[in-house]
Each structure stands twice: as C-alpha cells, then as structure tokens.
C-alpha cells in the first residue's frame, strides 16, 4: 500500500513569505505527527494530531507556525512570515493508535524548505 507522502519535496521561498506543506498519511492511520529536522540533528517534534484535533502542539516554535487536519486525514503545516531559521526538512509521520499507546510511526520523505 501507499506510504506517507509529502508535497512539495522541495520548497524555496523568500524571507517574509507564507508557505504551506502538505502531508498525506497512510490510509486508516488516526495519528499524525509533524517534525522539523535541521542539519546534523534528529527530528524535532512540532505537533501531534489524533483525528482532526491537535492533541499536543507544544513543539510549535511560535505563533507563525500552524497546522490543520480538517477531515482527519490530510494535514497542512502553515508557516507565516518565514525566516531564514525556518530552513529545515519538515517530516510528517502517521501511526495507528492502539490502546496501549504504542506508536510506531511511518515517516514520509520530508519537504526540504529553504528560506532565502
């Protein structure tokens, strides 16, 4: 079956612009995560959705970052007034949610965002 897909694969924008990054999770996965990975670092948690609601958004760095998942499937990460420091690879992952909370996450290939 299809894995997690992310579009675009690469995005180059100018400082101050608005960008949207899209994630299509694995069908049937109720949990969806966004991460940001900078060079030489591991994925940094941004936000977690359970269904349509953001169950934990404590990783969003500031109010320029916002994410939605209106129908409980596709999610969009939105960044306003982009800054050069936002340049990174943005990873999306999805998982089933079991009663035990075990969360093997399946990752997409990421969107590389470059802010000039």
């Amino acid at each position, binding site marked *: 079956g299809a894995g997690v897909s992310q579009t675009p694969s690469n995005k180059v924008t100018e400082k101050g612009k608005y960008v949207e990054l899209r994630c299509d999770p694995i069908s049937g996965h109720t949990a969806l*995560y966004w991460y940001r990975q900078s060079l030489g670092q*591991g994925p940094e948690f941004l936000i977690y959705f359970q269904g349509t609601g953001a169950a934990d958004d*404590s990783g969003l760095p500031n109010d320029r970052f916002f994410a939605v998942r209106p129908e409980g499937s596709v999610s969009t990460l939105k960044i306003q007034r982009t800054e050069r420091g936002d340049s990174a690879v943005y990873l999306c992952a999805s998982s089933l949610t079991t009663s035990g*909370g075990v*969360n093997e996450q399946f*990752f997409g*290939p990421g969107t590389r965002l470059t802010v000039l």
Partner: protein
Amino acid sequence: DQQVKQNSPSLSVQEGRISILNCDYTNSMFDYFLWYKKYPAEGPTFLISISSIKDKNEDGRFTVFLNKSAKHLSLHIVPSQPGDSAVYFCAASAVGTGGFKTIFGAGTRLFVKA
C-alpha cells in the same frame, strides 16, 4: 535541554562484526523507546522498540537493551552488513502518561565497511 542523547556522531565497523549504538536519556517518565534508521533523502524507518517493562528485545540481527537505572539503551547489530550503513536515531516517549510526543536523539551515522 536534550532529553535523548546520542553522544557518538559516527561509528565505523567491519562487515560481519558487531555494531553497538548507544543512547542515554534524562527524563524518567519515558517508558517506551524506539530505534529508527534513516537513509539519505528518505524519512526515518522504524527498526525496533522496547517497553520499559523489559530489558531486552530481539528481532533478527537487531537487539535493543534497556538499563532503566542507568537511563541507557543500546542497539546491537550482529552481524553488521554494508546495507546497515545509515543514520540511526534513538527515540523515547512517555506513553504511560498519555504522551505520544516522541523525542529523538541527534543520531549516529554507522559505516559498515566491506
């Protein structure tokens, strides 16, 4: 504050030998640990996990050991193969307290030489 630390940025091992990747954590609320493997230009891929109620979990050539008192876990790969060359991330979450937030270490790049 790095809650999950992988202090070795890289490791080089001869094919057929054992690879040991280490990970330390500071948050005693973590109760579920995972290892992911990442190739260039791809997202991380789940490898193996362990719950805090266990001290060892084995899957083929991969074994994860957990030492709760030392807040330390390690991934053993035996025998190592050239295809194992990748970046390995250790990750942890506090599932028992209802947390699905997963914290990743910075990764260790493994080179397996033929």
